[in-house]
């Protein structure tokens, strides 16, 4: 029961209080480019939840059993026990993400064409989405356990989904507004994101 409460509070924190997009600015590029369209935003949001949920725990396994100081001691080979490969962290994380995205794309193309059609074009984009690598780096930085990293991965994705769909809905309304020329597009989106992020600040302090 305690564990469940712990996971729930971690999830709330990742979704609302420390929203990966609005508090840490990760994934801004795709956020700005795709939030023009509500349908597409939902597509990329789902893809981020999906990929984050897989890559964060997977990267945890790689980091703990291959890269950390003394992580290779499970092999039983003495000379490997003192090896510290943690300087390879970034390369391994991004390689895992790139390979996994490619793999997942082929997999769902074969087994679930309807899912493929809804995620399809967004999956390759995800490789270079900072929020994916960011979630893995945060997981490493904050020393989560395997269970925590799975929860964190999914909820960081959910946070991204909420923020991007919210923004897409606002931008849809914005089409009928009269905005000064220089502020059109990127400028007004940035300021609106600021306001959205201010609204999210009101979640801070919530404890489960």
């Amino acid at each position: 029961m305690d564990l469940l409460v712990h996971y729930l509070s971690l999830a709330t924190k990742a979704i609302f209080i420390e929203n990966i997009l609005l508090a840490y600015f990760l994934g801004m590029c795709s956020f700005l480019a795709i939030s023009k369209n509500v349908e597409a935003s939902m597509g990329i949001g789902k893809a981020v939840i999906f990929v984050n949920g897989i890559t964060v725990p997977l990267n945890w396994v790689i980091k703990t059993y291959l890269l950390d100081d003394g992580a290779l001691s499970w092999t039983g080979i003495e000379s490997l026990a003192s090896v510290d490969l943690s300087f390879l962290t970034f390369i391994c994380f991004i390689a895992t993400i790139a390979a996994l995205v490619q793999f997942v794309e082929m997999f769902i193309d074969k087994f679930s064409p309807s899912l493929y059609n809804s995620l399809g074009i967004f999956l390759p984009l995800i490789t270079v989405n900072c929020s994916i690598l960011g979630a893995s780096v945060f997981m490493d930085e904050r020393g989560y356990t395997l269970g925590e990293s799975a929860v964190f991965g999914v909820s960081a994705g959910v946070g991204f989904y909420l923020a991007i769909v919210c923004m897409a809905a606002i931008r849809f309304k914005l089409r009928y507004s009269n905005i000064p020329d220089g502020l059109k597009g990127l400028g007004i989106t940035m300021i609106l994101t600021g306001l959205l992020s201010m609204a999210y600040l009101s979640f801070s302090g919530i404890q489960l």
Partner: protein
Amino acid sequence: MKNKKTFIDPLVDNNPITRQVLGICSALAVTVKVEQALVMTFALTFVLVMSNVSVSLLRKYIPSSIRIIVQLTIISTLVTLIDQFLKAYMYDISKPMSVFIALIITNCIVMGRADAYAMQNNVKDSFLDGFGNALGYGIILVLVAFFRELLGFGTIFDIKILPDFLNNGLMLLAPGAFIILGLIIWAQRSITNFVEE
């Protein structure tokens, strides 16, 4: 003449952040203090110039089907190098930024310039393009950081400028970054007369 244009263009007219909409994440995250912004610019300049040069050197040998993976490998090697360097020589400054240094790997400027420019152009042009874009990025970064540090802490480079009662805590939080950058984008686009559809 062309060299000069390759270099000057990304500084103002075709600025990577305000015009090309690349690399926004780090422009917002590491701009609480001017000092951090300068360190970030230094790290990005190194990575961008080196990756542009390496990709340009290898451009005839990279098959287009696996080019993303090859570019990512080059970039993440460079980022690892700069991260280790900062940890060794500037530990105090780089500690709070280490996540964002790692995220240079997925910074769209680096990938974007490598894929869009260095894959088609020779080494010298790619070098200039990388340098120009990194500087253009740096200008915006330092500008945002200047306003955030001035209005948030009342300091510049930790030297007190404004009295304490003027400090605005909102500038140090995420919304401040978004709004300042939004206003800078507005200013830049009004000056260059660029209107987005």
